[in-house]
């Protein structure tokens, strides 16, 4: 039996993923697998990853998040990373890290708007 790393909420064809745990390397890798499985099983067309509770996003975590978005895209699903904290955004930008293959939004409403426009 697979245990979920993060409890998710399915809304229409979308999957809302509120991350409220510390993202260490193993956790973010398990989250990637979980999301890919959910996209396939529940026929998800858009995932919204809410990172408003995540205090630290370093190069590896952003790599795995981007990679997940790229994998999701290959499965016909778009990814929106939602509500990055200002200090996390500052740190990522200063390090020169770009979140490739994912859209970004500053609210859940905006994230849903983005996904609606893509359909």
């Amino acid at each position, binding site marked *: 039996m697979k245990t979920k790393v993060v409890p998710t909420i399915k809304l229409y064809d979308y999957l809302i993923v509120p991350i409220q745990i*510390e993202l*260490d*390397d*193993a956790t973010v890798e398990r989250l990637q697998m979980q999301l890919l499985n959910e996209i396939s099983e529940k026929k998800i067309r858009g995932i919204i990853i809410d990172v408003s509770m995540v*205090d*630290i*996003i*370093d*190069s*590896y975590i*952003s*790599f*795995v998040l981007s*990679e997940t978005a790229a994998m999701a895209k290959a499965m016909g699903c778009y990814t929106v990373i939602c509500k990055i*904290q*200002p*200090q*996390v955004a*500052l*740190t990522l930008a*200063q*390090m*020169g*890290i770009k979140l490739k293959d994912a859209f970004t939004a500053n609210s859940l409403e905006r994230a849903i708007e983005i996904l609606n426009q893509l359909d």
Partner: protein
Amino acid sequence: MMNYQNFKDIDINVHDYDIVLKIKDENDISVARQMAKSFAQKHNFSLADVTKIATAVSELSRNIYRYAKEGYIYIKKKETEPDKDISIEIIAYDRGPGIENVERAVAGGYTTSERSLGLGLAGVRRLMDSFYIMSEVGKGTIVVAEKRRRKF
């Protein structure tokens, strides 16, 4: 700021440091960054700088775990003069394989690891106020980085 001429000259006195942490498995990466975060918070660094310090420690610990398998993170508060503002010094030290081309590793965008952006060391240099690295192939790597506390 420390400057070593030779790898064998490195002599870190653990008693000088507030935090000494051995990095030997993947979990230690998040332990290290949490400790760095609380330490910077305790010393009233701004939220932005707390995040930068914790992220830098995360990158350095991951490098140790990934490339050297084992090593240490040392963190201390530095006071240059009384009433002057303080800084936090971070040392990442390992006796791993070393880095063949240090300049290339620090410039960023280059990695020997499959699942990486190659931005770790370059990122640490950008996030911190000062950055020093010495690496010898077959001997190991040491990174010394410092962040001053800013008035906010």
